[in-house]
């Protein structure tokens, strides 16, 4: 009788003991065998390590560009260009090297769908005249030098256009200026119509500073989404006034 009672009591006592033990040691156990969520976000830490969990970029570093909200077609195109070597940047070429088209599409759609606040990245001190020049190039271009306005392709609010024209807002100065430089040195290229390569080659070095500084300093529009496909008629010949070249 006595033993029976003891046994009956022992069972719940043991359970409580186990429970307490698991509470005490459970957390250290979890570090030993971590659980991994089966989410795309978890799978693509190679991307988010630099570009941010939601593709917000890392404005503090002044370099890694924002991916959030960019047209998916544009993001896929960039990954393809890194794979084929049209766009050169060793860490990106290595990262996307063996991704399949389907996986790249999924990753692009993830970043494209993210809506996170923009933040400002550090700006260089530039004279007011440079800023004015930047504003002029962005909004009106320079017809004498055969430079089209940025807004003529990237949308009046510079938020980009579906499916493959990127927005220019919320990007760090260092990133924009290095990209314009890359277009000139052919370390950034893409498939036809090659407009950016032609336009960037029309810019002088001081123009690149001006455009990059003005774009990076710009206040954000109320609606930061890219314009719908077909809403902006890309001017013929890459918007370049008079015939500068065939575009190829």
């Amino acid at each position, binding site marked *: 009788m006595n033993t029976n009672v003891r046994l009956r009591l022992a069972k719940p006592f043991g359970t409580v003991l186990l429970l307490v033990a698991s509470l005490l040691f459970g957390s250290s156990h979890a*570090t*030993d*065998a*971590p659980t*991994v969520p089966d989410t*795309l976000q*978890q*799978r*693509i*830490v*190679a*991307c*988010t*390590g*630099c570009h941010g969990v939601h593709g917000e970029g890392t404005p503090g*570093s002044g370099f890694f560009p924002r991916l959030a909200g960019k047209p998916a077609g544009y993001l896929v195109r960039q990954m393809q260009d890194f*794979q*084929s*070597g*049209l766009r050169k940047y*060793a*860490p990106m*070429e*290595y*990262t996307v*090297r*063996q*991704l*399949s088209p*389907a*996986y790249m599409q*999924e990753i692009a759609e993830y970043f494209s769908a993210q809506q996170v606040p923009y933040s400002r990245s550090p700006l260089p001190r530039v004279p007011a005249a440079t800023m004015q020049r930047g504003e002029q190039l962005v909004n009106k271009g320079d017809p004498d030098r055969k430079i089209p306005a940025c807004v003529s392709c990237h949308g009046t609010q510079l938020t980009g256009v579906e499916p493959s024209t990127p927005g220019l807002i919320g990007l760090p100065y260092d990133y924009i200026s290095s990209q314009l430089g890359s277009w000139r040195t052919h370390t950034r290229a893409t498939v036809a119509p090659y407009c950016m390569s032609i336009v960037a080659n029309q810019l002088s070095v001081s123009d690149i500073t001006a455009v990059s500084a003005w774009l990076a300093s710009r206040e954000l529009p109320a609606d930061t989404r890219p314009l719908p496909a077909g809403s902006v008629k890309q001017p013929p010949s890459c918007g370049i006034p008079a015939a500068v070249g065939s575009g190829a």
Partner: protein
Amino acid sequence: MKAFRRLLLLVVTCIALLVVGLLGWFFFGGGHQPTSPAMSKVAAATLRDPALIARGGYLVTVGDCAGCHTAQGGAGFAGGRLLATPFGNIPVPNISPDRETGLGNWSFEDFWQALHVGKGRHGELLYPAFSYTSYTKVTHDDALAMFAYLQSLPPVHQPATALALGFPYSVRNSLAAWRALYFKEGVFQPDQGQTAQWNRGAYLVQGLGHCNECHAARDSLGGTPQDEHLTGGQIPQQNWYAPDLSTQSNGGLQGWNEQDIVDLLKTGQSAKGVAFGPMADVVVQSTQHMTDADLHAVASYLHSLPARPPPVEEKSPFNTSARVEQGEQVYTQRCADCHGKDGNGIAGIYPPLNGNSSVTEPTGINAIRAVLLGGFAPATSANPRPYSMPPFAQKLSDSDVAAVVSYIRRAWTNKAPIVQERDVSTYRQTPID
């Protein structure tokens, strides 16, 4: 005295090489005349046989011919890539059937001469960047199928760029000496004492798969000594370490069972490790497409490789414990969430670091570059949405990378030497391709 002896040795070696080279030129120089397709013993109709072409396509995939013969972003098999070697750059030729710039005017006899004998159409000695040291083992029938497949591809007009080798490597006939040292012509001979599966595996690994071209150390002349079979080695210029492939004690794949090997080759990762760097390319382009029978044959052969001698542990002249302690802190903050405090990873998702030869290989290059570059496991049909690791190049200093790599090389059951900060700064700069 010592210096004099070394000089004497150098002079004698140079003279010997010159003599062998001259003899080689005398006996092998020129000689072979190209055979036009019309003069070939192989009928044109044979080469158009769809079954033969299909078989050849599979073999060309197993041999990963496209891996070298396709430039980044270039047309398939059209060459154009520059293969960097310690002796200079070797442009990879166009093997599409273009008449002017590819193999369009080649006969099967010419192809066999290249694959089996390592000589070009006009009898010129080929540079062993083209791994005929392995391909010589490919059977005549398999070579014919491969040739039929290559001839069935769309021709791409793409002329080769000029050879960029320094003297004396630019003198092709100097290869006669090299061949005397490192090349033994001959089709694979099955070992009657082994199973058919083992023999198939040995044939694939030693021949078409040309595994030994990366997975063995190259000496100062760029050759792999005959007795060094799959014992691991640093890949020149690319700066990755291709590990030893023995599964026995002290082998690079110690503890791997056959299924682990099959999994890695088929899916890009196994419970024991993940393919990255150049091996990720090989998995995506080649091994994931191999039949299960062939993968098991490869695994069965690798399983038979002998045990290796235990590594000699050298006493480090540096303060090991301080670096390892610093590394443990970095590991706890940055790595343990995925690879586990115990270094065992998470099966099928994050590779274990404990007992992983990519961590403990002699040079430390793989671990350093994996930490700097991060990256995805290869995306394969079996693992189309792989997990990944963030790059730490922009987050960790050379000192922290050296520390964490040193820590994982000495933690748990690992007993590899620590690495230095200067190694990290070297491999920060290494190009990707």
